[in-house]
């Protein structure tokens, strides 16, 4: 979908606003959709679709400002291609999961790629938004400049809110120059704990690390920066250069890496029972990066220098619950959070429960942005 003119954009904005106002009137829940690339994420909801994908187009981009502003329906691909032409990129490396992925979806889902621990999450790059609230009001918060402390930081509050507070219409992002040099080195660590210590020790040193992950006995460290800086770091760290480094990182970002594939050995439906297995439940856990490996018996992929632990639960249905429970308990005692990222029962809660005291503020905020509870109700939590 290409760019649209100002006046068409204005019309689309008006239509979206009318739809929200009408939904308010009739108390009709709305299900916000962009490129439908992340429909699997969050809880399953019922609602009248309201489509933002057509609200597309890059509005403003000045490379020397390191800022881009685009409508929420703009395909991420289009934005990334334009930045690439100017030797710049999105610093948070958002997963696309599909070519149809839109900017609005990336911001509303708040998912960051492998660079997260080193260059920051999505919300660190959001400078301002225009949002259509559940009250049907078009509001602007933040701006197009790097530093801005006028008013509460509503634009960042909306990042990762899964459309529960408002429909994003326009977003301004800080972008970053592409590093002059980038390479990935491989270190062999049969033991995950050795990898975790190694990744965190390195992260505490002044070396230009931009990603660090461990899977199947190998630690991969990506170095990005000036040629001199990367070369020096490479020499200091040792290990071999991974010629397929770039493909590895996009594989774990897009979950096309073998670890995430359904047809790994052991994932296949059991021949004996002949019973069709459901898709493996993909669990994502966020913990303090130096947390020791837990659930050694469960095959995991570690990203974010230790801060993100993926577990693809391929157990058969009868064993699945206890296995998931075991993993969730382990993460909880490590004071981390588990998300039921993909597959499984999407009608129950999929995000780690919020303490009552925190939930209370979520409900109050929801109520202030969307008093009739019409925007993606229940997508994040049943109670929101």
């Amino acid at each position, binding site marked *: 979908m290409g760019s649209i003119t100002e006046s068409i954009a204005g019309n689309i904005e008006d239509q979206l606003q009318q739809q929200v106002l009408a939904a308010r009137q009739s108390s009709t829940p709305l299900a916000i959709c962009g490129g439908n690339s992340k429909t699997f994420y969050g809880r399953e909801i019922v609602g009248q679709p309201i489509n933002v994908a057509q609200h597309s187009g890059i509005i403003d981009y000045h490379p020397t400002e390191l800022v881009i502003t685009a409508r929420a329906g703009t395909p991420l691909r289009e934005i990334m291609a334009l930045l690439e032409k100017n030797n710049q990129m999105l610093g948070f490396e958002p997963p696309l999961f599909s070519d149809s992925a839109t900017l609005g979806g990336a911001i509303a889902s708040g998912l960051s790629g492998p660079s997260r621990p080193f260059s920051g999450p999505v919300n660190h790059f959001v400078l301002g938004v225009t949002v259509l609230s559940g009250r049907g009001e078009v509001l602007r918060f933040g701006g197009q400049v790097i530093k801005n402390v006028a008013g509460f930081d509503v634009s960042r*509050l909306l990042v990762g809110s899964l459309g529960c507070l408002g429909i994003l219409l326009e977003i301004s992002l800080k972008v970053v120059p592409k590093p002059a040099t980038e390479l990935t080195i491989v270190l062999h660590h049969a033991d995950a704990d050795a990898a975790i210590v190694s990744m*965190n020790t390195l992260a505490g040193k*002044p070396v230009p690390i931009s990603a660090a992950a461990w899977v199947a006995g190998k630690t991969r460290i990506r170095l990005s920066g000036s040629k001199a800086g990367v070369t020096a770091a490479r020499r200091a760290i040792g290990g071999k250069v991974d010629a397929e480094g770039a493909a590895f990182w996009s594989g774990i970002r897009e979950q096309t890496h073998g670890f995430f594939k359904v047809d790994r050995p052991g994932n296949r439906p059991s021949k004996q029972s002949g019973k069709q297995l459901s898709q493996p439940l993909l669990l994502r856990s966020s913990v303090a990066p130096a947390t020791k490996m837990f659930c050694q018996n469960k095959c995991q992929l570690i990203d974010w220098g230790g*801060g993100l632990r993926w577990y693809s639960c391929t157990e058969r249905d009868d064993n699945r619950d206890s296995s998931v429970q075991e993993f969730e308990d382990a993460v909880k005692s490590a004071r981390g959070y588990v998300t039921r990222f993909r597959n499984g029962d999407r009608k129950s809660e999929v995000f780690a429960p919020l303490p009552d005291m925190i939930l209370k503020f979520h409900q109050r905020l929801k109520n202030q942005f969307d008093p009739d509870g019409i925007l993606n109700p229940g997508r*994040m939590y049943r109670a929101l």
Partner: protein
Amino acid sequence: MMNTDQLVQLFRQAVPAQSIISEKTSLRVYESDGLSAYRQPPRLVVLPTSIAQVQDVLAICQQHAIPVVSRGAGTGLSGGALPHKDGIVVSLAKMNQMLAVDPLNRIAKVQSGMRNLAISEAVESLGLYYAPDPSSQIACTIGGNVAENAGGVHCLKYGLTLHNVVSLKMATMEGDLIDIGANCLDWPGFDLLSLMIGSEGMLGIVVEVTVKLLPIPECAKVIMGIFDSVKNAGDSVAGIIGNGIIPAGIEMMDNLAIRAAEDFVGAGYPVTAKAMLLCELDGTETETDDQIRQVETLFRDNGAIDTRVAKDEQERALFWSGRKAAFPAMGRISPDYYCIDGTIPRRSLGHVLTEINNLSEKYQLRVANVFHAGDGNLHPLILYDANVPGELNKTEELGSKILQLCIDVGGTITGEHGVGVEKIGEMCIQFSDHEREQFHRIRHCFDPKSLLNPGKAIPSLARCAEHNAMHVHHGQLPFPQLERF
């Protein structure tokens, strides 16, 4: 209304006598923050030493509807810590300890009254530091930094407070003690952490802050660019960034600022230059040398008349000393100065600085410019004399004109100092009624009685009606065509 003795008795239920200040002369210390043009002594100052005491103090305030202004070091430049006439000040100054350091996870948990610089000093032996470095870092507290989302000379590369805080513990007016954020890299639910940072003490009192620690760069070097026009200096900044170099910091000073700083500290600044840039690069030794060379070329390509690279650590400190002393240096050439904090897109630097110059002539007030050029965060310093009748008013009017100019080019009224009481009028220009209303609603979620910092940061609708009425010309709102970014 209770008399002072009754009020003291009331707060004695929460804190010991020595933690309450009620005596008139002692209260004077608290009557203003760094924006000393506004003064108002509070009824009392309470200095809690524990979280439980903070909570007890807030419970009393909530029950008796007493306004609360929290205060860190009082270095704020927007009147954020200005007391309320009927309220108390809660000073976090006694809660100033580091509670825990986790070197492998590179985080430290500190009490909110801890000074910014003290954090870096405490972890220096681990090869780590806390990156945001406001010029006031010897004095200002991490709680105040969180409230203002403070930045510093190095935030172009390392980010603001927002980018360097991982979690907070906050006491609310309703008695909750909530943990916001986490030691993990993300957590479920809305991003309440971003909402709290920069909320100017209006949503709760922050009692603990867990900050991110970064490895100290191997090497840092600074290069000075000397220019005979402000425009060339501005173009150099765009040139550096356009070439994919993100310096650790890039600061600009104009002639008036250069001269004042040079007179004050003798940093070896070029006193006849129209503008000067200080650009710091960091990384490994070879990397830094490479980049210094690139910046040097870019400076020259953009018309620098001279460049100088600090030859050693000592000279690097000397180069920075003038920049860091720029504010006090102004104090020596003018009885008073007023610091503006607007932020603009970098490409408008030349235009805005020229306009500021024109305004300065029109108002017959000198304006010196010292600022974070890399992020387009201006700090025009208007020099005035409060003892000259009418000069403060004239200064405020000029300040307001400069902020309107910033909004005009797509910028904002405050980059890092906050709205406080100072820019409350300009909030009416930058945001619509609906937007301001939404701010009030958010506030209401956390402080239903609006007792925290009442009257600041977000103007009431009535206040804006009044403000905009003053600024309406020929029945039109100022800048109706503007995007309110």
